[in-house]
């Protein structure tokens, strides 16, 4: 166990450094230390969510602040049955999230494998791979929208025309695809970092032994590296999903959800309803639904994290 060069562990099973016996005073000190953070987190994140649930049951538009009525489940009924944008936004959210996570994982896996070898400048290569994740998302969105993807002056279209392809106005013709690309550019480094940590916890001896036995590079990757990485892949996929479901910046900065509603996802829809339409009830109902969807997803994530914490 202790020969593992890498730890992949949440709360580790280890001897308690402090005997709990006779530690009544410790117990209260512990509470004192923990309480401020817990109280702060409850006030800023949990209570507002309870308020969101309450708001979602009201008919309340900020443009008519004096007219607040209890509406029961009307907002939910409206969103599910009558709102034409909701199904589109839901579908866009699912496509954007799954598409981005899958592509980012594949790219991240390739990057990680390339960085996991020794060669001159590996550190620089690694730094270059990581950088897109650090760039302010609104800046990377604007860079891609203009300098890279502009149909007339953009680098991507220039390269396409060099090889005889027609110019494409990516963000107008394939907005969701283009945004997925921008999100993948940002998140592939994240996946790379997690998968690289996984690869480096795989001992060199095993890979070398396999090579001595005449296993090809591809076989080695398929039968030794990938199975070892499966937990890291799960972790990356789930953390990535939780964050990418919330994607907002790149949509706001590039298409504003358009053309029409073709690149509107749920967070952007909620933003529009809350701050343009100023409909508190409807925005809250949508917010509650997004949270429920996220909770369902996170239950799975927490189980994976817990399994990691048991250290198998």
């Amino acid at each position, binding site marked *: 166990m202790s*020969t593992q*060069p890498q730890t992949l562990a*949440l709360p580790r099973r280890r001897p308690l450094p*402090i005997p*709990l016996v006779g530690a009544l005073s410790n*117990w209260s*000190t*512990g509470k004192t*230390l*923990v309480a*401020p953070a817990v109280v*702060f*987190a409850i006030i*800023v994140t*949990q209570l*507002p969510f309870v*308020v*969101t649930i309450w*708001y979602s049951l009201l008919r309340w538009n900020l443009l008519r602040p004096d007219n607040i009525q209890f509406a029961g489940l009307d907002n939910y009924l409206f969103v599910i049955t009558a709102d034409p944008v909701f199904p589109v936004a839901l579908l866009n959210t699912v496509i954007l999230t799954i598409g981005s996570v899958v592509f980012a994982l594949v790219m991240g896996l390739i*990057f990680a494998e*390339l*960085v*996991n070898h*020794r*060669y001159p400048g590996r550190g620089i*290569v*690694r*730094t*270059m791979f*990581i*950088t*897109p994740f650090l*760039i*302010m*998302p*609104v800046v990377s969105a*604007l*860079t891609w929208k203009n300098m890279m993807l502009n149909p007339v002056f953009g*680098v991507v279209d220039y390269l396409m025309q060099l090889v005889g392809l027609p110019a494409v106005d990516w963000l107008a013709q394939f907005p969701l695809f283009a945004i997925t690309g921008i999100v993948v550019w940002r998140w592939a480094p994240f996946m790379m970092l997690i998968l690289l*940590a996984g690869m480096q*916890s795989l001992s*060199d001896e095993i890979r070398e032994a396999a090579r001595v036995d005449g296993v090809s590079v591809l076989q080695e990757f398929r039968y030794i590296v990938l199975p070892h990485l499966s937990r890291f892949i799960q*972790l990356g996929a789930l*953390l990535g999903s939780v964050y990418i479901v919330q994607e*907002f*910046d790149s949509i*706001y*900065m590039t298409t504003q959800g358009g053309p029409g509603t073709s690149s509107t996802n*749920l*967070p952007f829809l909620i*933003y529009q309803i*809350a701050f343009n339409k100023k409909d*508190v009830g409807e925005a809250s109902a949508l*917010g509650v639904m*997004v*949270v429920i969807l*996220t909770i369902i997803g*996170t239950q799975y994530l927490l189980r994976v*994290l817990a399994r990691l*914490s048991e250290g198998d």
Partner: protein
Amino acid sequence: MAVRAAPRSATPGVERAPIGIAVAGWVLALIGFFPVIYLVATSLKTEAAAVVLPPTFIPLPGVNLAPTEMPPFTFAPTFEQYQTILERGFGPFFGRSLLAVIGSAILVLLLGVPCAYALAFRMIESWRDTLFFFISTKFLPPVGIIVPIYIIINNLGLLDNLVALLIMYTAMNLPIAIWMLRSFFEEIPPDVVQAARVDGADVWTEMTRIILPMVAPGLTATVFIGAIFAWNEFFFAVSLTATKATTVPMFMIGFVTSEGLFWAKLAAAGTMAMLPVVLVGWLAQRQLVRGLSLGAVK
């Protein structure tokens, strides 16, 4: 006893890479990095040079030719765009972002260090539940609370006030900090803590004199990771600020609609906006994965 991963650069990786791997690594990295190079290059151009194709990205100082007559891939660098952006009031946005980052970092440490300390050393029985409580707050999408947050902040008179952002960024980074700090605290050999106990040190002495100095690199890493997220944050900024408390990402909104005309200025603003955090991220590279995986991967 848990063994930590050796520093990345010292990890052997797979021995002697085939030349193909090295070439593929460099080529892919340069392709992925190109938009960053191009952004910085464009920030040093005139507006006329910014839209020249084939793309130019090599600065060639001291050559005075029209943008289209420069040697291939080169351009004549100028700092005029930076000057323009600074004259347009970029500075205050930058200052407010800095305040939001530093302020929330201080709050996060004040709340997070004691909490992570108590959780790491199992000073409360429900330490595991508490840890997962914090992680679950991180998974709450901001859109799930933005409406009441907006209304409450408005009622408190804190709309378009940096304090509002400070509070939200603290809440945003606190779970990450607690998980990260906890994982650093847990690496301290129990003997050290025990020895302090035997010497009769109280919790405060133990924490400030013995433990904190030992996890100083971890504290720095935690602050850096939080700074990256707070500096880049846009959703709360666009929802809760308008003119007086706007941060750097809000400055960039001005470029959303300016199609093609102001790329050099956009690039200059973008370069100044992204640079601080990119540098911090490069410095904190080794700890990045721990922060991003909430301490699960070291």
